[in-house]
């Protein structure tokens, strides 16, 4: 009898558990969002969600001619408010766990994006490994609405395109939330993001008919790096500056460099690039050491003349890379923002000096002097005429 009593008490204690199916959601009760766009609205933010239409993307039966994604927009006083107000228009619960990127319009980012970022950091449903992007010359909403051929999910197209551009050309940089936030919080370095834009008519890019042509009416294009100061957008780098930026922060994996000579343009493929920023004299004198491994990719005459010829070419490459980097630093000094992280170098190498200059780094940064030392090693001059060049030398 006693045992029965104890078991009963335990059962009663366990009862509240049975009501605890609080947090479960069936897969067909939710919408998987792949991207968030943030625009300015009159009241605060206008948030656009790109959600997936699973049966169009992955279904085997019941495929219609509907696009693989749909977009929903709603405005709200704050970012979170707008997200929640979206439930007015969405047919199901929104699931943010699979977001690929968050896109800010220029307008929003000029005013500071810390408020949306804070929500993104706090929200536990979201992973923090999605990319942050800025839309150039176009609203975030319009970018998200554009359909893409081959890759049915435009968000995937953007991220894959971005990393391809980063890996094989170089002027783009995929910045994830974690990294942005880290740079935002720590002193001596300012965050950056990558830009994105739409080529063509974004209005007709929304329609399925756009995809029924060999050249879609609107194409998503990965742009270059957007500079931020704290959480505020302050300007764009152009292609050369972006390349220089990536050289400086050691993010170049593989890229090409074109140098002009009297005989014509030589193209080199960079297979390895390593950059170290050295502090020469705290706090304002730096030396940037870059070592490059290049191979000859394209030559106008078909072969290169001897060792001298190679040396001549490599020195041209060295000058070019140095130019890339100096143009970037010049631009940053102009904007008075240290996105490369020279301040952090001071912090690491000379902590005591950094403590003194930390407060006034913003004014000190434009005055720093940077020397560039580029060492290029030609590891290979391509498959053609290897012997010839050796013999003639």
């Amino acid at each position, binding site marked *: 009898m006693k045992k029965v009593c104890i078991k009963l008490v335990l059962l009663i204690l366990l009862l509240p*558990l*049975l009501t*605890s*199916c609080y*947090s*479960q*959601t*069936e*897969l*067909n009760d*939710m919408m*998987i969002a*792949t991207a968030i766009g943030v625009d300015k609205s009159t009241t605060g933010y206008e948030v656009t969600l790109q959600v*997936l239409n*699973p*049966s169009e*993307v*992955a*279904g085997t039966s*019941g495929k219609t001619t509907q696009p693989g994604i749909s977009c929903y927009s709603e405005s709200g006083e704050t970012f979170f408010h707008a997200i929640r107000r979206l439930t007015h228009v969405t047919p199901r619960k929104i*699931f943010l*766990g*699979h977001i*690929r990127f968050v896109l800010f319009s220029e307008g929003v980012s000029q005013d500071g994006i810390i408020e949306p970022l804070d929500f993104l950091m706090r929200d536990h*449903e979201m*992973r923090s490994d999605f990319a942050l992007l800025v839309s150039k010359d176009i609203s975030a909403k319009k970018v998200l609405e554009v359909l893409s051929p081959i890759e049915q999910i435009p968000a995937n197209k953007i991220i894959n395109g971005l990393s391809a551009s980063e890996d094989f050309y170089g002027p783009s940089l995929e910045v994830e939330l974690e990294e942005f936030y880290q740079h935002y919080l720590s002193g001596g370095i300012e965050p950056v993001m990558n830009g994105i834009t739409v080529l063509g008519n974004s209005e007709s890019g929304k329609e399925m008919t756009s995809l029924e042509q060999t050249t879609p009416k609107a194409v998503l294009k990965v742009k270059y790096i957007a500079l931020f100061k704290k959480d505020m957008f302050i300007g764009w780098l152009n292609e050369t500056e972006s390349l220089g930026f990536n050289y400086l922060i050691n993010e170049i994996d593989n890229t090409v460099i074109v140098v002009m000579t009297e005989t014509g343009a030589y193209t080199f493929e960079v297979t390895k690039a390593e950059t170290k920023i050295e502090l020469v004299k705290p706090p304002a004198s730096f030396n940037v050491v870059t070592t490059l491994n290049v191979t000859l990719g394209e030559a106008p005459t078909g072969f290169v003349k001897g060792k001298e010829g190679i040396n001549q070419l490599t020195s041209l490459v060295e000058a070019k890379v140095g130019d890339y980097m100096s143009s970037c630093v010049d631009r940053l000094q102009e904007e008075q923002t240290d996105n490369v992280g020279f301040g952090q170098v001071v912090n690491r190498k000379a902590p005591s000096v950094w403590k003194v200059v930390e407060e006034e780094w913003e004014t000190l940064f434009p005055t720093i002097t940077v020397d560039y030392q580029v060492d290029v090693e030609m590891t290979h001059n391509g498959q053609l005429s290897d012997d010839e060049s050796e013999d003639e030398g």
Partner: protein
Amino acid sequence: MRKQVDIEQTMAIIDKIKKDLYHREDLVIRPITVNDQTVYFIYLTNTVELKSEDLQVFFIRLLVEKKRAKETGLLQACLQLGPSEKQQTPHDYLNTILNHQLLVVYDEAVRVNIGKNFHRAIGEVKTQEVVRGPREAFTESVVVNQAMLRERLKNKQLMFQSLTLGTETGTDVKVVYLAGVCKKEHLDDVLKRLKEAQIAAVLESHYLETLLETKVKTVFPTVYNTERPDVIAAGLLEGRIAVIVDGTPFVLLVPCLLFDFIQSSEDYYQRSDIASAIRMLRVLSLFIALLTPAVFIALTLFHQEVIPTALLVSLAAQREGIPFPALLEVLLMEITFELLREAGVRLPSAVGSAVSIVGALVLGQAAVEAGIVSNAMVIIVSITAISNFVFPSYDLAISIRLLRFVFILLASLFGLVGITLGLVLLVHHLTTLDSIGVSYLTGIAPYDETAHADLWVRKRLDKRQHLFTIRHVFKRDKVRKGV
């Protein structure tokens, strides 16, 4: 001449038997008189065949012995018929007759073991088949089984202890062990449990299994059973104790560990690397069979972020239009499968194929096409089912099947957290189990180096110190010879 007392004694025995078995119409009391000497042959119809030439020899011998006035005269005469022994008590008389043997009464009673054997011949193994290894299986006869063990272990230390259990059935039970190898306390424990039990009937070895099991309530088997003589022989060599029960080919083996149920005798008949890989596979299949549906439920209901995006989209697309919640879907499919499996086992083999056709249709395409269950769910249930068939032991497979439902329930309540907590509780439960005093997880907890060496992988036979290292745990001290 024969004394009056002797004749009275003979009649007393006959009367006694008649009184005890008066209602049995199959009782045969056959008096044969030669030279005024009446000898009674008592048996049940069709159990004993008495040939006239045998009887002639019997009587000649009896008369010869009579003249010599030897006391053991009857026994000597009976030995002409077959193996014989003297019987003293009325209980023994009854036992002889009921055991299908012949009782010869003349002044005294002698049991002659010439009863016919009604058991089938030694057949092939049905439950634990192997690709390589001996094929013969135990039979229903305890005598045959005993002989099969003797054949494998030509060892003077091989001991059989006979018991008669079941107050109503009087079943022959033999406790087998290798003296000097098995632990005395284990043997005493087994004998004590068997002897003290007040059990009415023993129709199958499971009746005794309940006596030997752990006292903790559990779904896990803590007594090993097999119809493979080689497995039992290996067990005896490791110092375990086997219990043979008359009337069933399944012989019990104690103590046994959890890992015995996922190891197969074939592990030792194969190259060690292959055997080890297969053993790993079985461990994997244990977790797959136990957790797959539960993890699927947990991930799709609670932790969608864990699933790769492409897979999630595909799963979501499959679930479009499915009317039931995922939990119900899983239960529906699992129960359907269990029904099919059970039907397949019980049905005669001619009808069995019909069930599998219906099952393939129901479980397979039809349910998916009707939009009742999703494709993924069919795959999950199939994987689970296949993994469940990987275990060499049927007993563990049943336990896992039951526990699977518990885990599905836990997953539907608390997702991965529920599964994790369930696993912790499961491990704790396993640590509390024992098989006649030996901890169920010996080797891991409490850790034992020699046992651990042969747990996950099977070492090469020549690289091991002991023949069966894992089982070395059992033989720590020696049993006195002849216990």
